[in-house]
């Protein structure tokens, strides 16, 4: 592994430098300088990644590990260092992270133009990029955990960016704590790994596994399940997805970068990275697949009825992540990573476009009060159309290739695979339906801005305007990527990733089944579009009366299955109650304080008694004196009086 000057640590440290510069001096620098710093360092980092990609293309052997990594923790026999490793998987992730990351930085310069705390936003964004690159480049679990929790911190800071809004703060805490539940699983997995392998470095673990696999499947399943808990926490799958919809409180570029393109995919990346372990635990893989499919289906149903443009996209992200988990679950890691890449493109684009719409409408996020923006915001409209087509899985667009690869892999994965494929297909239908619903309501039809349904007047309703070019350029670039991102094709992509994600995922056999599946997928997408057109295309109130007919179902979906309320009442309230009364009253007041109070009380009581003994009356004193003297005499003469004359003998004995 010669070190051809890839400057791996620099890729991570550049955004950190950006964070430090903006963080420490940002408030005093002019806005222009702040944005140049914020853009320059990610660009340099992206350049380094591009250069590495070019060198790999020119035949550099991967994986490349840094030679003498500085040690981090070295206690007893346990040793872990700041070890950066670059292999195919990392390269792909880096390209996505730094590429899409830079575009979103560019976009937010325009979007955040007139927000207060401008420098703080960009400092946090750079910090996020630093932690994400560390997560992806990490050569051992502990360093990955640094990135893992780091991105959690960055997302907490960015979600809670609007410090004057309480809901933003609560959403930030909710995100961080739910992530922490996932991290708990990750920690336990790391301890199990130390217990079994004595080390946390990926290369040495895979080496030990290949040399002589002493790991029993039971132990492997336990490790993998803990890892899955971590992944579920970070990638917002059931049951730990609740924080993602609330994370929309943060500015839209944040949602685009963190809650669509990069951070939430960390879970998928981690499963792909540790595929060697997962291959030993088929049970864990099926769990991943089932969770993925269930989340995809569940999130899609909720997305159908959402009215806030960003919440629709949030549930759609959860659903797409479900697809990626399905991909990993059926062993098609490269398909999952492929979908991860394409999803980063079109979901990032969707969020940025939504941002541009919100920016244009002066902060309006409710799609029921939008409409008719096709003519006023043409570039946003066309780029968003590309993204909608991509996510629904229409033929030439990126979504088709990656989603189809996953569904195909699921199809060939035995009987359970077929069931998962079926659910996946239905979810694809729902995906295209809610995406086109969004598409129609936002861009087509008349502008419903002034006929606000709930009557509160829109005092400064100004004419919707197109966003500045700095916001549109990233949109166009991402649109291009969404269109031609998939043309690489799953076969070439899987071949490229093979050394990193293992050869287990046999390339889907060509031939008529695969063709049939892809055609079916496109048909399903078209069906979704058609139904959406029926409901929202024309001006009829078809959508509203459908809602009345299925009122109960509509209410359930509208309230997101009351999951949040259930969690609060089942988990949060009991913990607080137990803490306040169980520990507060029982533990503190009775046990800890009570025991001491009892002790003090008893001694105090004796004190009181003895105090009373002092009656002040002379004759009682004399009586006590006499009694004392009598006691003394009896005590001294005990020997002789009772005939034992032990004491008398003692005198003789002493003399002799």
């Amino acid at each position, binding site marked *: 592994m010669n070190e051809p000057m890839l400057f791996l640590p620099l890729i991570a440290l550049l955004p950190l430098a950006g964070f430090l510069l903006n963080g420490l001096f940002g408030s005093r620098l002019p806005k222009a300088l702040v944005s140049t710093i914020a853009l320059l360092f990610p660009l340099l980092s992206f350049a380094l990644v591009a250069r590495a990609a070019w060198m790999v293309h020119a035949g550099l052997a991967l994986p490349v590990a840094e030679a003498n990594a500085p040690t981090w923790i070295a206690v007893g026999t346990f040793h872990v260092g700041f070890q950066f490793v670059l292999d195919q998987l990392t390269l792909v992730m880096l390209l996505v992270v730094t590429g899409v990351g830079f575009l979103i930085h560019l976009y937010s310069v325009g979007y955040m133009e007139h927000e207060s705390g401008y420098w703080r936003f960009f400092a946090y964004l750079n910090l996020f990029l630093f932690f994400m690159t560390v997560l992806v480049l990490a050569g051992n679990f502990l360093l990955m955990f640094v990135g893992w929790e780091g991105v959690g911190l960055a997302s907490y800071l960015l979600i809670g960016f609007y410090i004057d809004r309480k809901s933003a703060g609560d959403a930030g805490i909710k995100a961080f704590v739910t992530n922490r539940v996932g991290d708990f699983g990750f920690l336990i997995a790391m301890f199990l790994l130390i217990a079994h392998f004595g080390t946390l470095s990926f290369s040495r673990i895979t080496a030990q596994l290949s040399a002589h696999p002493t790991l029993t499947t039971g132990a492997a399943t336990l490790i993998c399940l803990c890892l899955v808990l971590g992944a579920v926490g970070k990638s917002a799958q059931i049951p730990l997805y609740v924080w993602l919809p609330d994370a929309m409180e943060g500015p839209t570029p944040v949602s685009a970068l963190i809650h669509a393109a990069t951070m939430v995919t960390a879970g998928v990346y981690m499963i792909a990275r540790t595929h060697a372990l997962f291959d030993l635990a088929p049970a864990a893989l099926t769990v991943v697949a089932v969770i993925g499919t269930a989340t995809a289906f569940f999130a899609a149903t909720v997305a159908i009825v959402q009215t806030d443009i960003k919440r629709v996209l949030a549930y759609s992200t959860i659903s797409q992540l479900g697809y990626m988990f399905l991909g990993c679950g059926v062993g098609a890691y490269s398909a999952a990573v492929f979908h991860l890449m394409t999803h980063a493109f079109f979901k990032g684009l969707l969020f940025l476009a939504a941002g541009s719409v919100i920016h244009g409408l002066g902060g309006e996020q409710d799609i029921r009060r939008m409409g008719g923006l096709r003519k006023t915001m043409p570039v946003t409209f066309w780029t968003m159309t590309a993204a909608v087509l991509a996510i629904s899985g229409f033929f030439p667009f990126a979504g088709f290739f990656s989603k189809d690869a996953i569904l195909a892999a699921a199809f060939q994965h035995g009987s359970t695979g077929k069931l998962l494929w079926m659910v996946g297909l239905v979810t694809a239908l729902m995906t295209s339906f809610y995406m086109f619903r969004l598409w129609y309501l936002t861009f087509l039809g008349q502008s419903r801005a002034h006929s606000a349904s709930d009557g509160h007047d829109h005092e400064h309703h100004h004419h919707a305007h197109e966003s500045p070019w700095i916001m549109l350029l990233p949109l166009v670039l991402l649109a291009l990527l969404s269109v031609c991102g998939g043309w690489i094709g799953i076969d070439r992509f899987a071949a490229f990733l093979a050394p990193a994600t293992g050869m287990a995922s046999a390339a889907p056999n060509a031939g008529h089944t695969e063709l049939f599946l892809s055609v079916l997928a496109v048909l399903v997408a078209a069906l979704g579009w058609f139904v959406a057109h029926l409901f929202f295309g024309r001006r009829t109130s078809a959508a509203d009366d459908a809602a009345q007919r299925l009122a109960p179902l509509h209410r359930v979906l509208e309230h997101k299955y009351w999951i949040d309320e259930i969690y609060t009442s089942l988990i949060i309230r009991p913990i607080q109650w137990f803490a306040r009364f169980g520990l507060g009253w029982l533990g503190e007041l009775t046990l800890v304080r009570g025991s001491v109070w009892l002790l003090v009380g008893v*001694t*105090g009581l*004796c*004190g*009181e008694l*003895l*105090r009373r*003994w*002092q009656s*002040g009356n*002379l004759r*009682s*004193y*004399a009586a*006590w*004196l006499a*009694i*004392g*003297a009598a*006691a*003394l*005499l009896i*005590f*001294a*003469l005990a*020997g*002789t009086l009772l005939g034992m*004359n032990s*004491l*008398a003998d*003692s*005198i*003789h004995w*002493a*003399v002799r």
Partner: protein
Amino acid sequence: MTPDILRILPELILTLTGVVVMLTDATLAPRSSRKPLGWLAALGTTIALCASLGQAALPAGTAFYATVQTDAFSAFFHTLICAIVLAAILLSIDALPQHHRGEFFALIVFGAVGMCLLTSAVELLVVFIALEISSISTYVLAGYRKHTAQGPESAIKYFLLGSFATAFLLYGIAMLFGATGTTQIQEIATLLPAARSHTLVILAFALMMVGVLFKVSAAPFHVWTPDVYEGAPTPVVALMSTAPKVAAFALLVRLLYGAFPLLHTLWMPLLWAVAILSMTVGNLAALRQTNAKRMLAYSSIAHAGYLLAALAGVGSQPITAIAFYTAAYAAMNVGIFALLSLVSGPDEHRSQIADYRGVLHQSPLTGGLMLLFLISLIGIPFTGGFFAKFYSFSTAMNGGAAWLVLIGLLNSGIAAAYYLRFAIALAQPAAKNGHAVTLPRWTLATSAAVLAAGAATLVLGIAPGWVLSAATAAAHSFTVIGGL
């Protein structure tokens, strides 16, 4: 051979001072202040102090037909008692109201004579006389605040109970004389095995113990202490709680190790029981006390218990422990009572602990020193109190009395509660409704006494080597007894 007169030089000087003070009192105008008399008494005591220090150089020996014996033991206690008396005199020069008569100082000096004699007497007759001299003078001193209700009451209680206990002691001496035919301590020790009847000897011992334990204010005989300390004027209490107790302990050691070494197996369990009783009663009763002087009275009972616990040791270690403990105890008590009298002023209007709130804020020096003495009473390291308690309990532990040590130390743990409540009261800011605390100015005499006591407490805690070697020498003056 050194002339006998040198053996009782300190007592002579003190008596002379007393007489001179009485005479000059007569010459002074009735209305003039008696302060010069105080300085005169202080001068006399200092000379006596130097004399007793000089006595240490004398070779050990008896005088006046073997009634008085001066050895390292008696020299140690002579110096200690003279120091205490000196401090008490210095205290009372400014503390007592102006119109008091001159004989206050004379009484103190005569009491000192009795106490010094008690430590060097080896003839039971002389013991009885010395005991009576010191007791009678302290009876009168206890009742010195005649015009208040408590003064005479404390005097009468002290007088009646004191003489009651002394009667027991006397009866014991009579019985001992009956059993052995002699009242000389060394002779008793030799004649004891051939005593006429053993029950008579044991009876005599028990009766004498009653008298001595009363003087030491050990448990079953402690009931007089709180009332007497509360009633007596604070400088007198500073004297009364230390000097007679020190002398009584010296007498106890003389009796136990001089006269009754053979009864060791008899008095060991007896003193264990009394020690545990006094510690527990002293500490528990003090927990709920609100009156400062009563609380310190109970604390002195507890300290008597700690002292008796040292007797559980083997060989001559207990005597060293007791000697050192009495020195440290005296320094602490004189110090704390001195400051109490300074802060509460001549008419002693502040008796409750709560009245002392905010002293540390008003004048950090007074508060700081009171804190030091309280900490020493608690037994915090680097103070005299700790090392005394440590030394006494380590002697007991070497004697194998682990249980006694455990009970003792737990007791001192409980004791920390009421001492600390007093210390924290000092540290708290003055109560809003409380009247502004006006502290009297520090006069030369009181500051000399208090600073001396404070220095002694610190030195005994940090560098106890010098005093410890004196105490060990005192212990060796008792011939190694019966192969113990």
